[in-house]
């Protein structure tokens, strides 16, 4: 590789870093010049200092662990249930036809509508928030799996039938490889939604986690800490997204790249 092409490849990444730096700089300078009130929008350096302070607090790590637990539990349940239900519904035409309207009706119900319900049923516990996370993430996975199962190649299906592949073998060698890319897309979409709902639940319901810390910091008037914690939730989201993309590429390394990824719906 010549230096010029390496440079051309590195340039976008450098520009991106520059973009982040300019953003940080604007938020450093604007409060200091009084463009925005410094009390409510502290300069970047103070937010970063507050973030450093948070990292030194054991309570922060406990909250982070709680958020990860809520997120992971909810996402795990949603993925298992979504894949199981999706494969079952998708493989049986009658079930597919019979559940279509129900899915269309239940899916758009905003899971935050369930907040008062889970409060009266389970109180300010992690369980309440997990219910919200599962409800929101389940549909993302289910719908992608349904798309995936429907995407079965007719030639491959007929081949499998000609060779009299049994149900189990068809599941393993026909259905699963077709549906896998959709499953992974579903997981990635679900992970983002699950994080939103985990933090939201903590913020509104008061179950332990980063969302609750944000609420406490705001009520205590610790404005830089509020921004620092929001920064952490954003980083968490970026990490999840990048991590799942890497996983996707790794798991699907065998996959003909010509197969288009379904547009997220």
């Amino acid at each position, binding site marked *: 590789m010549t230096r010029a092409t390496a440079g051309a490849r590195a*340039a*976008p*990444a450098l*520009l*991106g*870093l*520059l*973009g*982040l730096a300019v*953003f940080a700089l604007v938020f450093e300078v604007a409060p200091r010049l009084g463009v*925005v*009130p410094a009390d*409510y*929008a502290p300069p970047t350096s103070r937010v970063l200092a507050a973030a450093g302070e948070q990292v030194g607090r054991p309570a922060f790590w406990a909250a982070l662990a709680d958020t990860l637990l809520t997120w992971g539990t909810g996402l795990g349940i949603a993925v298992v249930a979504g894949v199981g239900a999706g494969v079952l519904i998708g493989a049986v035409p009658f079930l597919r*036809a*019979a*559940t*279509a*309207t*129900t899915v*269309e*009706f239940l899916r*758009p*119900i*905003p*899971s*935050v*509508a369930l*907040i*008062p*319900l889970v*409060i*009266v*049923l389970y109180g300010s516990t992690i369980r309440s928030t997990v219910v919200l996370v599962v409800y929101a993430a389940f549909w993302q996975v289910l719908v992608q799996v349904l798309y995936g199962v429907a995407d079965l190649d007719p030639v491959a299906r007929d081949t499998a039938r000609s060779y009299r592949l049994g149900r189990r073998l068809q599941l393993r060698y026909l259905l699963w490889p077709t549906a896998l890319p959709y499953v992974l897309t579903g997981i990635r979409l679900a992970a*983002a939604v699950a*994080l*939103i709902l985990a*933090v*939201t639940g903590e*913020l*509104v319901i008061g179950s332990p986690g980063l*969302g609750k810390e*944000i*609420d406490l910091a*705001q009520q205590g008037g610790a*404005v830089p800490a*509020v921004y620092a*914690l*929001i920064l952490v*939730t*954003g*980083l*968490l*989201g*970026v990490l*999840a*997204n990048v991590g799942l993309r890497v996983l996707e590429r790794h798991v699907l390394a065998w996959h003909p790249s010509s197969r288009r990824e379904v*547009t*997220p*719906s």
Partner: protein
Amino acid sequence: MTLLRRTLLALGLPVLLVAVWWWASAGSTDFYRPALSTILAAFADTWTWDRVRADVLPSLARLAAGYLLALTGGVALGVLIGGNRHVRAFLEPLLEFLRAIPPPVLVPVFILLSGVGDRTKVLVIAFGCVWPILLNTVEGVRGRDEVLSDTCRTYRIGGGLRLWHLLLRSASPRIVTGARQALAIALIVMVISEMIAADNGLGFAVLQFQRGFQIPAMWSGVLLLGLIGVLLAWGFRWAERRMLGWYYGQRAGRREW
């Protein structure tokens, strides 16, 4: 026959589920899980015209304002960013980060910055749901057909014509995808902003019922929120079919071929 069969398939399960809920909850003495008949009676008593005007309409107005703001802002910025490689590289990591922030956590920050009024809620809805629209517009504009692009250049089609017929048209399937995701987020942020700080609105009312232990009224509020979500999604699908009919037709044609 087929019509009957299709109706049965479409309505069978929902009717069955509601019936099961009705019978299982009939005569319920559990304070927190009232009978469905009680909830429906509470629905009629609670959501009177006065209450709709006081709580539902302000919520929907804020939702509409925030969503439209995000739609216009997101598409405008998306076209600008998507049209230029360097701007895109410059902003991409930043946008990825901003998108990853769960929008409801911004509610406390926006309250600090602009108070607890309607303006805050509209802004926070817009800021929360703009990212899917913006990023999808960027992708859509970037992925425009090269032949069409070159044709535009050859015929020196520029300005408004190029914007409308090339950029927006190429990006429209992606914009619609983003707009659909954004609608779900907007609804979430609307409810959350009213739960955290408001003196009217659906989220406020539902939480108020819960705190006052008016459990049937609370359940009816949850039903109403769900109903609004469903109606918005259906309305969106209707609009999508009308606007993107050409695109689905084109894609179906390509598949058959």
